[in-house]
């Protein structure tokens, strides 16, 4: 019974020792924190108890781990005696207290960049060729998206393109002129028209478009915008127009949804 208990505690001690060695190898602790003679004493003490293959393998792992730590201690001593030795804690402190400019300056004073000319290399060409060859065809990739049958190419006329908003149906200048004429017709004898009465259209998008066109009319001097208290009036002008006649002021006009609703109803 006592022998069995001894084996269990022995295994635990060796596993702890291996774990410590692994932590040291991973630079979590200083290698000199481990007392090598004490570790060897532990290994020796349990060596006679091991009977199974697993226990002997554990013993072997403990010895090799310890050997690696001894190697690290030796490397540490060699490093400390070299000119590169600086305590990691001190380095951290220094780096933290230094500005980015200071650090960058130090690097520049120790940096001798390699001169290399980038070019198409055999390796990169092979990689590109491999990528190209492995890439599925357009039709294969299209199948994954399941877009349905593929339409064969066909012709499309200008009105159709205009409907799809690919082409403008009319030139911008001509559209402005048409809008000015429309305004002139609507003003009647009074010579002016309420801004919202003129701008409002059947839907919100069309209203925004008319408001944008009106803003160009005002900027180009083709119409005037008068503001009296809450009301805004549009007054069309006759040619010749000049940009000097345009409004020098910017007037932001929000377009609320309610501005469109009365006509839509």
């Amino acid at each position, binding site marked *: 019974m006592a022998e069995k208990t001894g084996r269990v505690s022995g295994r635990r001690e060796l596993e702890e020792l291996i774990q410590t060695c692994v932590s040291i190898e991973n630079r979590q602790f200083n290698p000199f924190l481990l007392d090598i003679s004490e570790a060897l004493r532990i290994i020796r003490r349990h060596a006679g108890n091991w009977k199974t293959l697993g226990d002997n393998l554990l013993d072997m792992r403990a010895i090799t781990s310890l050997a690696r730590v001894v190697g690290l201690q030796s490397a540490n001593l060699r490093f400390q005696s070299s000119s590169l030795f600086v305590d990691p804690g001190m*380095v951290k402190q220094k780096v933290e207290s230094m500005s*980015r400019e200071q*650090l960058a300056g130090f690097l520049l004073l*120790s*940096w001798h960049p390699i001169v290399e000319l980038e070019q198409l290399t055999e390796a990169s060409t092979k990689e590109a060729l491999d990528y190209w060859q492995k890439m599925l065809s357009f039709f294969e990739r299209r199948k994954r998206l399941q877009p349905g049958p593929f339409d064969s190419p066909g012709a499309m006329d200008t009105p159709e393109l205009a409907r799809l908003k690919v082409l403008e149906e009319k030139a911008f200048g001509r559209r402005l002129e048409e809008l000015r004429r429309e305004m002139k017709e609507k003003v009647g004898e009074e010579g002016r028209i309420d801004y919202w009465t003129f701008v409002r259209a059947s839907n919100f998008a069309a209203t925004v478009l008319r408001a944008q066109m009106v803003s160009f009319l005002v900027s180009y001097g083709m119409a005037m915008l008068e503001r009296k208290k809450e009301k805004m009036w549009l007054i069309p002008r006759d040619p010749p127009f000049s940009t000097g006649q345009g409004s020098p002021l910017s007037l932001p006009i929000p377009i609320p949804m309610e501005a469109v609703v009365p006509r839509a109803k």
Partner: protein
Amino acid sequence: MTKEQSYYPERVKRAAHMLFFKRGRVPGARSWELKTGLGKEYPKVLAQLDEALKDLDLEVKKVESQTLSDFKPGPDGEEEMRYFVRLKGTLTPKEARMTGWRIDNLAALAACMSLIVSKQGKSERKELEQIIGEKVGRWRALTLTDAFLRSGYLEEDEEGLMKIGWRTRAELDLESLMMLIAESKPKGAIVEEEPGEVSDSAETLEVEGPAETVEAELEDQASTEG
């Protein structure tokens, strides 16, 4: 002029082509490649190239195999070396800016290298990201660590620890960097004076060392970068 000497200019040209033009992932040329291309006397040819490059502030740098973990041994099993052409002097901050390097990158690389060297060439990635993050922010620390890994300044070993990469061995004078960092004083450090000692700092002209000059230029650069 002997026959052997008349070969040299042609070989020197060939050596320059082999070292300047990148033919694979890593720049420069391996010793066995140079031996095949230039003949057995390639060290002499390289010495002559080094001499010719001096006027351009460039030099031929030899990096030994034990420091280049990703290099394979030569076909005849001989000790593998890699030769590069690198800048002999150093870059000014303005020149560094032209190469596309930001102050953040330079500072992060300096912090990274000093920590790894102080830890005998290996450090945990988390620790590196933490030290870089303090200077340039957490997200930038993550991307910069990846960038350093891709460019060869850092390498990751099988245990996931970060170590000094081939490019660092070829480009950085680590002794000088560690010396500069160890000797540095934090910005705005107050020099304590002996009680009763009269300060003459206002009268004496401070002589700026190279580090101070570079810092001043970098500060200007940082202020213009916003």
